[in-house]
């Protein structure tokens, strides 16, 4: 996959930084970073999956608690320019009815609004209102095969993510095109982005142009995951 080249370059940059850190800090423990992750992540992930109830909605907030300036724009490379009239969302993979949807098609589907807490891996959080289409409604349109267990999201800026199907089918996992009662700003992922109260911010891809339903995870799991972040990243 072409997209991998940049992460690898970025990865080398980060390795350089961490070896510098190692020498400066004089702390050999950094070498075994990935060991701590590899040893405990399977346990953490099973506990997370066990705690996670895919049908249970997360309580929402009244719109009066929205923090209009709370959401920090945290993009990984650049802000892609997308013509909303020419925009298409392709939904394919192991499905019986692959689709290519326009914004008009998507806005014609039932609108769901939710006011939830968006939590960033960096530690900050913001209460945001999102409006959009439930991902499960889009998935049901393409009629996935019974083998489907994962969903890949491709973004116009080259960002990529993968989710477990249960989290993707959660009733509060939206393909959002509204934020805080307004059309979604470009910096926040217009015309279409993922929004959900059950995953960390880096799972919530912006500028999503492709959704692919698959039965197996590829070696490339997600932009940040491929550099060492945890994959499940549930809240």
């Amino acid at each position, binding site marked *: 996959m072409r997209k991998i080249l940049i992460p690898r370059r970025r990865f080398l940059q*980060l390795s350089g*930084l*961490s070896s510098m*850190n*190692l020498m*400066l*800090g*004089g*702390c050999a*423990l*950094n070498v075994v*970073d*990935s060991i*701590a*992750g590899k*040893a*405990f*992540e399977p*346990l*953490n992930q099973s506990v*997370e999956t066990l*705690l*996670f109830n895919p049908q249970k909605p*997360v*309580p929402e907030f009244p719109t009066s608690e929205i923090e209009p300036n709370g959401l*920090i724009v945290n993009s990984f490379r650049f802000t892609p320019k997308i013509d909303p009239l020419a925009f298409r969302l392709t939904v394919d993979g192991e499905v019986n009815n692959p689709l290519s949807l326009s914004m008009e098609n998507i806005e014609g589907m039932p609108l769901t609004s939710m006011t939830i*807490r968006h*939590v*960033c*891996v*960096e*530690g*900050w*959080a913001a209460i945001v209102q999102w409006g959009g289409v439930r991902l499960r409604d889009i998935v049901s349109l393409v009629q996935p095969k019974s083998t489907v267990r994962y969903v890949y999201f491709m973004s116009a800026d080259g960002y990529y993510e993968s989710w477990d199907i249960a989290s993707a089918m959660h009733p509060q996992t939206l393909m959002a095109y509204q934020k805080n009662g307004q059309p979604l700003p470009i910096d926040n992922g217009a015309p279409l982005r993922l929004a959900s*109260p*059950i995953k960390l911010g880096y799972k919530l891809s912006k500028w999503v142009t492709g959704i692919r339903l698959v039965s197996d995870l590829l070696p490339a799991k997600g932009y*940040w995951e491929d*550099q*060492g*972040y*945890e994959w499940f990243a*549930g*809240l």
Partner: protein
Amino acid sequence: MNLSAPSKTGRTIPYQAIAAKTFHWINIVSLLLMITSGLQIYNANPVFGGRTGWHFPIIFLLGGWLAGGRHWHFAAMWIFSLNLLWYGIYILITRRWKHRFASSKDLKALQLSKNPKRKNYAWHRLAYTAIIPVLLLAIFTGLGMYKPAQFYWIVDCFGNWQALRIVHLTSVPIFIVFAIVHSWLALKSGGSRLIDSMFW
């Protein structure tokens, strides 16, 4: 706090149960991992001032970068909390809880006792009794931040997200002050032999 056994030279040397030593060791090591990896996570977006806020120097950090810090934090969290859990079960089963923690007798001693050793001892018991709720609070607030979708009520207990982060982080300076005071009081009441007995 410590039983005494006569040594060959006739002096009494402090003696600690092997379970107490094990708990003490695991507690110190896992807390050190929790704090250093926690400060690595803190540095990604300082609680006070956000990204432009004050950052901790590299020497106090574990994990190399945010992802590594998180891996360490969520690995050490198991060791730290399970250690505290089995310690709880241990003092319950062995009935140590009855005389291990500060009581009204210690408070009285602090006010009335003329014996400096007795006072020291009371302060010591008071300090390590008070640290247990702090450690439990650190786990509780940490759980609220780790799983806010499932444990939203924990976040609600503290009002909002920022308050929860502040309470979680506050356990770090409290613990460091405790470690200093605790060691100093131990040194005053039992000297280096008492300190040694807690480790070896």
